[in-house]
């Protein structure tokens, strides 16, 4: 039996600003991880990644990132994704500044 599927989100960087973005269920690119579509099925994950990769005019480098379900949407399972969600720790720069 295959191992339990770890839920995923599709994430990438915005083409112009480079901001970290997430694919939502209604096909928007959101800068807010809470809005991301949490994908629980491997076949659906592959499909969503393919769809994301076709949108090269909006984003760069789409990939599937492991997430855990949380009270406010997907939560990163690895610190790298946690830093990507927020921005650098030495300055209040990037999208954390713009969303404030």
């Amino acid at each position, binding site marked *: 039996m295959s191992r339990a599927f770890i839920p995923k989100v599709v994430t990438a960087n915005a083409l112009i600003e480079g901001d970290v973005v997430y694919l939502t269920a209604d096909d928007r690119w959101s800068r807010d991880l809470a809005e991301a579509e949490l994908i629980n099925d491997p076949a659906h994950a592959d499909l969503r990644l393919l769809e994301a990769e076709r949108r090269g005019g909006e984003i*760069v480098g789409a990939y599937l990132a492991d997430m855990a379900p949380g009270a406010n949407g997907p939560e990163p399972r690895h610190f790298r994704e946690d830093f990507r969600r927020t921005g650098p720790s*030495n300055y209040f*720069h990037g999208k954390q500044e713009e969303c404030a």
Partner: protein
Amino acid sequence: MYQYNDFDRAFLASRNDQFRDQVQRRIDGSLTEDEFRPLRLMNGLYLQLHAYMLRVAIPYGTLNSAKMRQLGMIAERWDRGYGHFTTRQNIQYNWPKLSEVPDILDALAEVGMHAIQTSGNTIRNVTADHFAGAAADEIADPRPVAELIRQWSTDHPEFQFLPRKFKIGVTGSPNDRAVVKSHDIGLRMIRNDAGEPGFEVLVGGGLGRTPMIAKVVRAFLPRADLLPYLEAIVGVYNLLGRRDNKYKARVKITVHENGIDKIRAMVEEEFLKRKPLFSGVDQEVLGDIEAQFAPPAFKSAPIDAFDAAYAADPVFRDWCDTNLAEHKAPGYAIASISLKKHGATPGDASAEQMRVMADLAEQFGHDELRISHEQNVVLPHIHKSDLPAVHAALKSADLATANIGLISDIIACPGMDYCSLATARAIPVAQEIAERFKALKLEHDIGPLKLKISGCINACGHHHVGHIGILGLDRAGVENYQITLGGNHTEDAVIGERMGPGFAYDEVTDAIERIIRTYLAERSSPAETFLDTYRRIGTAPFKAALYDKETVDA
């Protein structure tokens, strides 16, 4: 310093036009990312964790006031008001927008700067001693040779697709401040027994996954043979270097796998073929370049004002004792400006700070600035009578931290706060260690100490050659920091020794404090440096302090 000629300007203008067009075609959808990526990397534009990053070359770390001012202007207009100076004497902008990068490149070209070959498997920006042209211990200024190498290597048709990136460092001084032994090629300017100037040529140095100290491939190379000999080395590497495995592609592995004797024989043979192809034009060019690096007209003036300020003002005195180095001209000093204020990000300078440093260089410093591989800025030529005014201006710009060469003068790479290759953070670790030793008021007592931090095995933070090195890793999804001791970046370069298992993010600063307390307890006298104590007593007392729980706080 070297001024661009018509050829340089035309070359840059056409490259920038080309890239503007490529960016436009990426944005309008005519180029895919796969097509565009190599093009942007050729122009120094990376995509990092949170944004693009533009890496701008500062050849051999030399700037004048106009360039520094323009770097500040760019930071303010197109970035977040600051820039990050790196261990390769470059500057990185962390927040450029793709659509605005062509404008940034045009602004750089206005002052004769670019981002070409700051990425890719090419010959990268040539680095040099940051005290070049000023140091009292210097045989000759290495920068004319570094500029010659820059011109030769920029857009060199044979060397655009090397097996891997290729870095050259030059020093004109027996005391190596340019870490030449960790470069793919290191050049040390020396004189032979007859007194003729030349180079000791080292090859195959490098840090990263497999750290290696460079080996001597030619003990004495006459000055005039430099370019044919460099071409012979890079040519041999270009054919022999491995392209099957990225981790074995650097020339250090080529040297390691083939042996220095075989490499030397191949290089010498290649050199004999290439040498006749050099007609001597390179030496004429070098002559022209040298004229542009003529030493400034040093003034002579009384230094009473300096002596008076030194006697009267303890803050000024402290800064002088820590941040000044000996200059070759009487009455002058080399002033290092620390970009390591306790708790700040190592190597970062704001646009306003860049303007202040540019103004000081223009007003007091013969219009010269340097970026050091230790991520600080240097005013290489300051007459001592001007030092009180320089210090006062630095103080009001928050640039007068007196910690050059001390434990808080930490090299830290961007790590996981910016870099997409990182396995852990480096900046906050540096910030916390600097704050800790400031609070303990111990750093002057500790004395000379090189602490270097990298956020992954690529070792941009030079951790292998730090007296104390810290390497951030990802151990099963948690940040973990390995500590090495006893590394050295100078002419006696040594790779540090790993102490044992790593430490969690919130344990690192305590671990460093235990190492330092061990040193303070063990040193034979306050004059014995950390490195000397380590060499004398070995690893055991430090390992005990780090891992033997019984002895902690005993």
